[in-house]
């Protein structure tokens, strides 16, 4: 261990208190709420980076209010949760940099406060070691994302938000039912304690509780068939919010879901089912993406496809496949953020959401469009971008698992990739077509937003250069899962 390590509880405290400070001081801060949010997130990134090495060496347990688990509530910072926390806070920092110029209304403080609450929820869900505490952070995450989806108060955003709210709340009810069943039978809420005593549960109760929990989190993770809200919510939200919703929110829910299934309920026997669900989610997402006329809906369906791929990889159940899945989480967080953030300015500059209206934008916004293409290529998995290595390791480890169904499903994953290529080419044809743009584009992308997009792109473009440490981090994180 190197020197005294900061307590991981700060990772939750800092964004939470900054969110309240922004609201309290909104009359003093005026238009500068986002600056405070940016500073809080920058501190968050620094703290997460400084905590990570210690957590990777040995899991850090934080005892809250001096009461030890299983009676008290604890936080666990291990390689998996800290890796995901890093993904969350770095994405959030870059998106908040983008939001400086992208969010242009009067009440920026409200946006910043909600954004920080969303980060609090995501970080809390990853770090907590208590199943009811998990529910509370899950609700913080959900409620702030419902509001942020409707942030512009357009008809579509409001509709998407209430649809998301109703389905999301049904999901949280299911989680509560599961918590009630566990507590009624075991009398504990601590995840490690439940995991150690799970054999005391009758098989029926255990499967029912697990099913309620998985369905509940599955709604937020957008697993088929619980994902009908996602294309609406992710397409109607402000683009900066779409970027975080697609970039890390659904991934956090998915990782927590697999983690609870594996280490709390220990129901590895259902993983083949999850594998099939993952491949179905992947194919439905990619085929639906191919049919979309609007760019953001296409990207949203592509996120469903990617979540399917990650679920598939995680439920293969080998450390190699899981480490590939975590690499894919990193790749998707970076690439999908770039796609949504660039799409935000495409929409702002042309005033249209439809792909056909973006004719010739590739030449009018050259840098952004180049990064847009690069991000798409990384999602497809073209070498030497990070996406190639993650997809490659997912496929090879699924193949080396060797069973006939996993071979078959690895083939279906490749079919999904082919569909991705098809709609990628469709977008490219429009972006770089020589047809004249009817609306004249007066300006490109502001410098701050462009810097944020550039830094996101670095993650997948240079990811191959730092592949060894990345794979190591993903590997040690995957070891926690199994």
């Amino acid at each position, binding site marked *: 261990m190197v020197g005294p390590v900061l307590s991981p509880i700060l990772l939750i405290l800092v964004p939470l208190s900054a969110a309240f400070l922004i609201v309290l001081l909104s009359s003093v801060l005026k238009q500068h709420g986002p600056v405070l949010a940016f500073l809080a997130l920058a501190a968050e990134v620094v703290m997460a980076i400084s905590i990570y090495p210690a957590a990777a060496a040995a899991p850090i347990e934080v005892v809250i209010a001096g009461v030890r688990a299983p009676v008290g509530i604890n936080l666990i910072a291990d390689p998996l949760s800290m890796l995901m926390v890093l993904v969350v806070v770095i994405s959030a920092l870059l998106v908040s940099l983008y939001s400086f110029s992208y969010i242009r209304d009067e009440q920026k403080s409200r946006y910043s406060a909600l954004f920080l609450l969303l980060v609090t929820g995501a970080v809390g869900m990853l770090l907590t070691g208590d199943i009811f505490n998990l529910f509370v952070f899950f609700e913080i995450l959900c409620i702030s994302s419902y509001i942020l989806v409707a942030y512009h108060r357009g008809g579509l955003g409001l509709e998407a*938000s209430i649809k998301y709210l109703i389905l999301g709340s049904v999901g949280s009810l299911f989680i509560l039912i599961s918590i009630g069943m566990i507590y009624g039978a075991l009398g504990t809420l601590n995840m490690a304690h439940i995991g150690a005593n799970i054999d005391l549960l009758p098989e029926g109760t255990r499967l029912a509780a697990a099913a309620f929990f998985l369905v509940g989190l599955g709604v937020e993770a957008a697993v088929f068939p619980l994902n009908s809200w996602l294309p609406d919510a992710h397409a109607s939200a402000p683009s900066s919010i779409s970027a975080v919703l697609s970039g890390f929110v659904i991934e956090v829910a998915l990782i927590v879901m697999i983690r609870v299934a594996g280490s709390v309920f220990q129901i590895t026997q259902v993983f083949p089912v999850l594998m099939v669900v993952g491949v179905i989610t992947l194919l439905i997402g990619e085929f639906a993406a191919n049919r979309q006329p609007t760019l953001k809906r296409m990207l949203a369906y592509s996120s469903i496809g990617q979540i399917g791929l990650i679920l598939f990889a995680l439920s293969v159940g080998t450390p190699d496949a899981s480490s590939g899945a975590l690499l894919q989480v990193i790749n998707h967080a970076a690439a999908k953020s770039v796609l949504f953030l660039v799409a935000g300015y495409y929409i702002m500059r042309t005033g249209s959401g439809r792909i056909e209206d973006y004719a010739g934008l590739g030449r009018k916004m050259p840098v952004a469009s180049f990064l847009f293409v690069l991000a798409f290529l990384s999602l497809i998995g073209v070498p030497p971008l990070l996406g190639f290595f993650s997809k490659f390791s997912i496929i090879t480890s699924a193949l080396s698992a060797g069973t006939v169904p996993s071979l078959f499903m690895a083939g279906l994953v490749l079919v999904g990739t082919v569909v991705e290529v098809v709609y990628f080419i469709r977008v490219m044809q429009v972006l770089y077509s020589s047809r004249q743009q009817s609306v004249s584009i007066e300006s490109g992308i502001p410098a701050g937003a462009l810097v944020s997009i550039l830094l996101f792109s670095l993650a997948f473009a240079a990811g191959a250069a730092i592949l060894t440490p990345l794979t190591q981090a993903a590997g040690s994180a995957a070891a926690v899962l199994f």
Partner: protein
Amino acid sequence: MNQIFTVTSLMNIAAFGLIIIGLLAIFTQRNIFKLIIGLNLADVGVNIFLVNAGYIDGGTAPIFTDGIRSAQIMTDPVPQALVLTAIVIGFGITALALGLTIRLFEKYHTLDVKEMRGLKW
């Protein structure tokens, strides 16, 4: 006979009855208000189920008073604390949903989700 109709099992039946009614409302109704009411019914059902998880037949409130010095006959306070949290969260969600409903009504002048533009329900 007496074994089946304990307070706990009756409460559980009531709880799951409410949850099922609420979910049915959510998946069959088209009026946003009725969707929100369905959500609330299911919410109340879950809360009853949670309180029930710590209920002891004939137990007292988990407070040490003059007459009661033993924790053996008290109901479990943890689920009650959980329900308190769950009620607050449920209240927040209902308030938010109603707020969104007002905005939606201003935009579309209808509460019927099928008549709203744009999205498929």
